[in-house]
């Protein structure tokens, strides 16, 4: 148990450094039984609790927004069982994402969701946020890879939701709990699906004169019926930051954008798809398409993508990593609008995103010591979200709502929609003690909901 102010300091924020709040105490349990004792003590004291993994989240989900006890799961880091033949593993929530894939590689298997922070983030945190990553286009997000959960409810009751065999006989409560951002209880064990390591992987890097033509290539690839494992775009500003950093991947700094395409599957099929992708990129205006010849080159291509956030540290002291989704076909026009918004606010924007999913990550470099710039960062962020919602999108694709976006929920959902979510919450946590202050708006609102934007007002064909 940690209670001294200097010990609590590191827990006052997560990857979102804008909103901070210290917990009253931090506990570091090793077992489910220890979590149960903590939750029981919180119940008796009427105190809130906040499950926390590695603290790499980007929406304030692991911050004790209303104080209380942070249940830090990093010591619950054991892989309990690996059932290679049945293709699943049972893990504690503190297992690091990349460690799991490493541990099962010897069986020819991997854990598919691979968020950018996979070297540090934990499975428990991934479950809370329904984390994605570059390979979700083909493999889906965390929810598609969780078979069952052991959950400690705020009442200290322990339930197993789901089973390693899948196919819930009644309610899919594991499905409902994934992505609930720790507001339904503490996950203490996870049954995760493992998938075979693909026979062949081909990675292509296409250079485009501008970001709009790279987006057109993405639409063409999707429309052609191809399902790459990943379709990622890195824009010019990001390329320049990467090339000036230790992550330098040898990209041309005059390129307007690069599109990274990864194909995987059966060797013969992958080679053919690679040819098709090359043609489609050329047709969309690519000036050059490279195919990784070996593992080292593949790693170099990915460095341009995965090193982007690190490299942007060079641009300014702070980085606001935004997360929003639009229909993939709307990417070109939305990117133009996003750039226009940031220009208007005089902000430094760079884009690196999961184009195949329509999942934007507009990154704004800033200096928080400049209060006026900070104000403009917040204002531009809100405009970006509104723009995405108007295009039929959503305000978070993989980072979650947390405290960051709770007051923007009204952009997408009306009172009744939020009440429908609150009903689920109350069934698990009637006293609102599991990670309070997340997801749900802090203020009442009535005019924000925009049914047109969320696409529920269509006239019949």
């Amino acid at each position, binding site marked *: 148990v940690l209670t001294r102010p200097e010990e609590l300091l590191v827990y006052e924020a997560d990857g979102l450094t804008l909103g901070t709040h210290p917990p009253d105490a931090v506990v570091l349990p090793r077992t489910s039984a220890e979590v149960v004792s903590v939750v029981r003590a919180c119940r008796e004291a009427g105190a809130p609790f906040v499950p926390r993994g590695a603290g790499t989240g980007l929406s304030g989900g692991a911050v004790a927004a209303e104080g209380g006890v942070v249940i830090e799961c990093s010591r619950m880091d054991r892989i309990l069982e690996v059932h290679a033949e*049945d293709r699943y593993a049972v893990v504690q929530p503190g297992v690091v994402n990349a460690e799991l894939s490493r541990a099962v590689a010897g069986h020819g298997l991997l854990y598919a969701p691979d968020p950018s922070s996979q070297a540090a983030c934990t499975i428990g945190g991934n479950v809370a946020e329904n984390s994605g990553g570059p390979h979700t286009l083909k493999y889906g997000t965390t929810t598609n890879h969780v078979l069952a959960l052991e959950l400690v409810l705020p009442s200290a009751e322990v339930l197993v*939701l789901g089973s390693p065999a899948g196919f819930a006989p009644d309610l899919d409560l594991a499905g409902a709990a994934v992505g609930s951002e720790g507001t339904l209880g503490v996950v203490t064990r996870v049954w995760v699906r493992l998938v075979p390591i693909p026979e062949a992987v081909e990675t292509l890097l296409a250079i485009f004169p501008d970001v709009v033509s790279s987006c057109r290539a993405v639409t063409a690839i999707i429309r052609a019926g191809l399902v790459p494992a990943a379709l990622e775009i890195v824009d010019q500003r990001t390329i320049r930051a990467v090339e000036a950093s230790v992550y330098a991947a040898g990209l041309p700094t005059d390129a307007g954008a690069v599109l990274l395409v990864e194909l995987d599957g059966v060797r*013969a099929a992958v080679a053919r798809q690679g040819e098709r992708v090359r043609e489609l990129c050329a047709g969309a205006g690519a000036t050059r398409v490279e195919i990784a010849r070996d593992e080292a080159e593949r790693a170099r291509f990915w460095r341009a993508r995965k090193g982007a956030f690190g490299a942007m540290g060079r641009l300014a002291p702070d980085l606001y990593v935004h997360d929003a989704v639009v229909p993939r076909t709307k990417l070109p026009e939305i990117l133009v609008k996003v750039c226009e918004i940031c220009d208007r606010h005089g902000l430094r924007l760079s884009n690196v995103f999961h184009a195949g999913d329509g999942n934007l990550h507009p990154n704004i470099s800033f200096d928080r010591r400049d209060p006026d710039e900070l104000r403009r960062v917040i204002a531009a962020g809100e405009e970006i979200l509104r723009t995405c919602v108007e295009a039929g999108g959503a305000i978070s694709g993989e980072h979650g709502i947390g405290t960051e976006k709770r007051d923007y929920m009204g952009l997408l959902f009306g009172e*009744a929609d939020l009440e429908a979510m609150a009903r689920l919450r109350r069934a698990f946590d009637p006293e609102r003690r599991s990670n309070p202050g997340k997801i749900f708006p802090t203020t009442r609102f009535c005019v924000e909901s925009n049914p047109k934007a969320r696409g529920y007002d269509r006239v019949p064909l």
Partner: protein
Amino acid sequence: VSGPLRFEGCEIPGRLEPASPQEIAEVLSGLAARGGAVLVRGGGSRLAIGNPLRRADAVLETAGLGRLLELDADEGVLQAESGISLAKLRSAADAAGWELPLDPPGAAATLGGTLAAAAPGPSFASPRDVVLGIEVALASGELVHAGGRVVKNVTGYDLGKLFTGSFGALGVITSAWLRLRPRPEARAVLLAPAPEDAGLALEAARRPAVRAALLMDAGPAGEAAPDGAGGGMLFELAGDEPAVAGDRAWLAERVGARAAAEGALERARERLGVGAPGGSGEAGPPARAEVRLRVAAVPTALASAAAALRAAGARAVAQPARGLVHACAVLAPDAGPEDAAALLAAARAAAERGRGSWRVEAAPLAVKRGLDVFGEPGPRLSLLRRLKAEYDPRSVLNPGRFAGGL
């Protein structure tokens, strides 16, 4: 609207067919206000699944919600009302160059019924993964939304998962956004003699281009027994040309798979169905007293699960890679609970050994009365009760039919 009909021992005075989601919501709030209840019905393909209905003032049909609202061919997504038939949705998707990844048994299956039952088919086993957004009418009279039209979304709780598989116990699904799949370049349906070795069957079912693999006992008409000797294994291959060709050759060599007869997959699919519900009215009385059940087990435990069900007198269709067995036993028309006891015990034990679950999908009323057809919810029951109390506190929706008799 029409005369009374009987359903599982309940007399249901009328039938309602609202014409819009809003009307469904209004019907529900009206009923809630005066303590009424409905039996919700889509196409009726899976109406047999459920505990005995306690009471209902009307059958609430979703047939009036039959519209395709949008199909975005560039994006590969569509939005449709819940009463639309899957057949209609499938041909719309097909015409736009996409494939609808839902293929449950039942020619009359609707979108809403398929989602409410989370009904797997041989090629596409997971309706929950297809739903991007959902609109639901609650018993409170509210029409609520979750998710949306984009393919990746963590904006709030994933209520689509809660309602997919909720059997109408928490709300009536009125429309949904679905994610389509690219139409495969190549496809083939093959039939092989059932491999003796369960490991080989699993390996075959897991070939990369195999998307349906059904290990079948000989059916009533012997349709699954190409060599007339005890069943066969049916495969559907789909994907890129080279991948399909590669697996076709592998399956020919390793398990002796050959091209199957026209319609083999469709006939096999219907063996995963549940038959007509035990009601009268338009559905008519069941032709035979059947017990149909489903066991989910981890793949390595599946062969023994199927064998145990077979030993208890059922014919089984196993899907080795998915870990699902559907079994069907025919009982005497006047069968009581004791006649099904051995089969149910086998299912329960197989689910336990296979770290999975079991549920009865169709049974004569007398058999249903002696059990919870959803298997035992166990310690989850109190949570299920709280969920029911939150979403449908007055039991307007399908009272008695859900797990735990909720």
